[in-house]
Structure formats: C-alpha cells, structure tokens
C-alpha cells in the first residue's frame, strides 16, 4: 500500500510541475462546450435538449487527449521498469497511476462541467445530476483509457489507434451519463442511470488495472 501512495503522490506532484498538460485538457473542454451555443444559436429549448450529449462528448474527448501522458513518459524514461520491478503488484500501482490521472483530468472536468452547463440553460438540479454522472463515469473513462494507452505503448501512431480502441468502449458510459441528465430533465429522474454508471465503475476498478498491467508487461518485454 505504501508503493500505491508513493506512485499516486509522485504523479500528482509531477502534474503540478507540468501544469500545461492539465490546463490543456481543461481549456479544450471549455472551448468545445463554448463553441456549441455560439454555433447553434440562441434557441434555448434546443440548447437545453442537446446539452447533456455535448457536455458528455466534450468531456470524453478532453479525457481522451490526456491518455497518452498516462504511461508515455514513464515508459520513455525507465520509470515504468522500476514500477514493474517494485515488490508491489503492478495492477495496484496501475490503479494508483489511473487515480492520479483521474484527479487531474476526470475530476476537474466533472467539477467544471456544471459551470459550462449554465451556458446551455441547465439549472440547479440538472447541473447536480450532470456533475454526479461525470463523477461516476469519468473514472470508468480513465480506467478504459489506461487499457488502451498501455496496449498502444511504444507503437507508432499510438494516439489515433488508442482513440479507435477506446471510443467504442466509451459508448455505454456516454449513453448512461448523458442519459442521466436527459432523464432528470424529463422528470423521470436520473437515479437508475447513475446506478448503472456506478455498476460500471465497480466492474472496471478491479478488472481494468489487471488488463493494463498485462499489456504493460508485454510492452516492457519488447522495449
């Protein structure tokens, strides 16, 4: 468990040193979500209808931009070898890395999303559901993204390839994430969607790190 904390702290401290990476993700999210009201026009009913989908897709794409930095630099500078040779199980340490990554991408996006939601005319209750759906869904995105990032580690054109791998896997998260807000808006309540997102999270927390660790070992074999 000590190694878990060490990796987590180290990655968080590292992203404090490279603030640009974190800010890029956030800036991308802000820009994309601000473009839509400008492009679609001031039809408040339309904006309100498309808001959940747009905010979710923008968050998903912003998170995707940040996946390459999950393992790339560790792979290039040899830290990944060290992590693989630690006495701690590699999947536990992968979970630490994903947690650190989520704090700097998914969590900040989830906290920022309600602010962007205001532009689309969503109000209090819906903003809360939006935030909750992102809080539950974005860790799943990070976990799946880690699998793809590890599978494409050291491969040429890794960015596009990992996007092709993860986007289909993101579909269920997107459907239930955006669906939660739409359902809450229609008066049905988003609880069931949120519960399903929670279930996805519970499944991916133990499984995704195992798959990621296996893929990292393969990448290290061929290093």
């Amino acid at each position, binding site marked *: 468990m*000590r190694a878990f904390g060490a990796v987590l702290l180290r990655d968080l401290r590292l992203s404090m040193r490279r603030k640009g990476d974190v800010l890029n993700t956030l800036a991308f999210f802000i820009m994309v979500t601000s473009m839509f009201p400008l492009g679609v026009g001031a039809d408040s009913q339309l904006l309100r209808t498309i808001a959940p989908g747009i905010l979710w897709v923008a968050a998903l794409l912003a998170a995707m931009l940040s996946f390459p930095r999950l393992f790339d630099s560790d792979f290039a500078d040899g830290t990944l070898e060290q992590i693989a040779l630690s006495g701690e199980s590699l999947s536990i340490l992968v979970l630490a890395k994903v947690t650190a990554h989520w704090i700097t991408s998914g969590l900040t996006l989830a906290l920022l999303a309600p602010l962007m939601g205001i532009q689309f005319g969503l109000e209090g209750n819906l903003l809360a559901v939006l935030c909750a759906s992102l809080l539950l869904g974005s860790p799943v995105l990070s976990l799946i993204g880690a699998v793809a990032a590890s599978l494409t580690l050291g491969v040429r054109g890794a960015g596009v390839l990992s996007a092709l791998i993860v986007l289909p896997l993101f579909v269920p998260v997107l459907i239930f994430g955006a669906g939660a807000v739409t359902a809450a808006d229609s008066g049905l309540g988003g609880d069931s969607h949120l519960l399903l997102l929670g279930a996805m999270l519970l499944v991916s927390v133990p499984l995704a790190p195992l798959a990621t660790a296996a893929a990292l070992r393969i990448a290290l074999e061929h290093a």
Partner: protein
Amino acid sequence: MFSALDLALEAGQLLRVMGANGVGKTSLLRILCGLRAPSQGAVLWSGSPIAKVREDFHQNLLYVGHLSGLKDDFSAIENLAGSSAIDGTDVDLANILQALDMLGVEHCSRIPVRHLSQGQKRRVTLARLLLAAERPLWILDEPFNALDVRAVALVEGLLTAHAAAGGTVVFTTHLEPSIDPIELTHLDLDRFATTVQ
C-alpha cells in the same frame, strides 16, 4: 540470440557479462530480472521460478538499466525519494544527501535533473546503489556509461564492496574494468550465440 546458457550466481560473486553488440547482453539482464520472459528455459531465485516468488525476488533485486528512471522535472532528491518509496526502501533526506554526496552530485541535488549533464544524471541514478545497498542482487546494465574516470573508479569500488559484503553483482560494460581479476568472473555471451536466420 543465445542458447544453452547455464548460469548460477552465488553470494559474493561479481559477474561481468561480455559480448559483441547485439549478442543479447541487455536481453539477458532483462530476462534475469524478470522484465522479459526467456523463450526457453527458466530463471530461478533460491530454487523457485522468479514468477512464483516475484515479490520476494523484487525486494531483493536492484536493477539499473540503460534508462535513467529519472523524471526531468524533479530534483535529484525528489527523484531518489520517489523511486525509493516505489521500491519499498526506507530512506530519509539525510540518507539521500549522503548518497548524492558520495557520488559528488550533492551541490546540484535541488535543481530539476533536466539541467544536469548526462554524467551527473548517471551519478544520480547510481546513488540508488547506496540507498538500496542491503538488497543482495544488483543487476546493472552499462553502469559506467557517461561517467568520468573518477566516477568509474568510485562505482567500481561500490561494486566490489557489495560483492565483498556478500552481495551479488551482474553488470555489463564495454570499458575494461580495473577491478581485480581475481574478484571478477566473466561470462562471454559470444560463446552461446545462436545465428539469427
């Protein structure tokens, strides 16, 4: 790359792996520490396959590869504190400063390592040898790369001292080490090379 290689490492042994470029020195070291699986054969630690006793094996192993394992944005102190915590070694600031001082890089221990020269970075990486001195097995891939003559002598001293204290060292180098030949065993991989089709 190579085959029919039967090797047993004893406590107190200092083994230098030799061979032409591309014969598989690095691959052998990576196989020994479990980063790479051999296509045939097995690596045993105290009689058990390393995959079975992975945790115990890794707690007894220190591997320093070609790559530095240093984060450019961190200072030498932060790097060593971080890597020791990941390895599971207990160190405090005094230990780290002492190790950096031994290797002659204490004066630049607080600036990001990206500002250091190749040789200085190598010295910072090798400070791990002092911090993890109680780990019996050291596997070092070209530890003398980028080091100046004095640092090479210093590191050679560390290696012989580790072997004298009952540790085991496996290393590669293309320099002719000035270690007493009586203490040094050689493994010439060229003799085990298989021709690649």
